[in-house]
């Protein structure tokens, strides 16, 4: 993920999409919901595929699953609390 080429792979389509959308703004409405849902399903499927085919991850879960769950839940809760408090601080 840190590979700069991979980062560009994400930033280029994002910026291209925004620019094209901006240019097409005054044309007739384009419906993207159905198309994007199909691609989301493919993305989530391939994410699941990566998890299911990762034996290292699957073997780790029974061993450290409980501790991992505690740490992840507490970390999520504090991240949310800090962002909510931080938003008030910067008035965003």
């Amino acid at each position, binding site marked *: 993920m840190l590979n700069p080429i991979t980062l560009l792979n994400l930033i280029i389509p994002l910026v291209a999409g925004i620019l094209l959308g901006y240019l097409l703004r005054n044309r007739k409405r384009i419906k993207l919901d159905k198309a*994007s849902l199909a691609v989301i399903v493919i993305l989530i*499927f391939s*994410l699941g*595929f990566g998890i299911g085919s990762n034996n290292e991850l699957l073997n780790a879960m029974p061993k450290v699953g409980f501790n991992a769950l505690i740490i992840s839940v507490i970390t999520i809760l504090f991240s949310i609390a800090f962002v909510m408090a931080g938003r008030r601080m910067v008035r965003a």
Partner: protein
Amino acid sequence: MMKYVIAALTLGVAAGYLNNNFLNAIPNAVVSDQLFNLSLIALLFVFGLSFGLDKEAMDKMKKTGPKILAFPLFVVLGSLLGGLIGGLILSIDVTGAMAVSASCGWYTLSGPLIGQLFGTQFGTLGFAANFLRELLTITTIPLMVKVDKYAPVASGGATTMDTTLPVIMRYCGSDMLITAFSNGLILTLIAPFTIITIASFI
């Protein structure tokens, strides 16, 4: 929407497991890397397009402006405190626990890097805990968004630029695109440095 996500995730896990352990029909990377990257690139383009088309989304974005750049900082600080408290509750080494939560959901980084710096046990914990952070975020976004519009972005951490982004966009609206993407990008860039800094306190 959520039922499709859960179904796709479950089927994906089952298919990946069967393919890897029994069928060996296709190389794992074809789906988990190539198909994943292609669909992510397509989604980023489509999300960018819908953001560009949406005048309201851009106006909302302009109102919040550069303040969104502060969000990743709050996410890191919240994560570090979460790791500290989690480590104390479980009575394990708190620096290790903080390194685990400093990965902010990036489990492919935290496994190897934390393993190297804190030992195999913490590497495995980092791998599992950050994987769960991603999984819990994806599956609870509809609940979190009721608490706060930005809660899914906070919870997703480094994953909000890729795996959790589509679900965030669906539930939080297209004006969250830049906020979520930049949050994930910044956290991805700083996570290795935070982990290495924590390791220097051992």
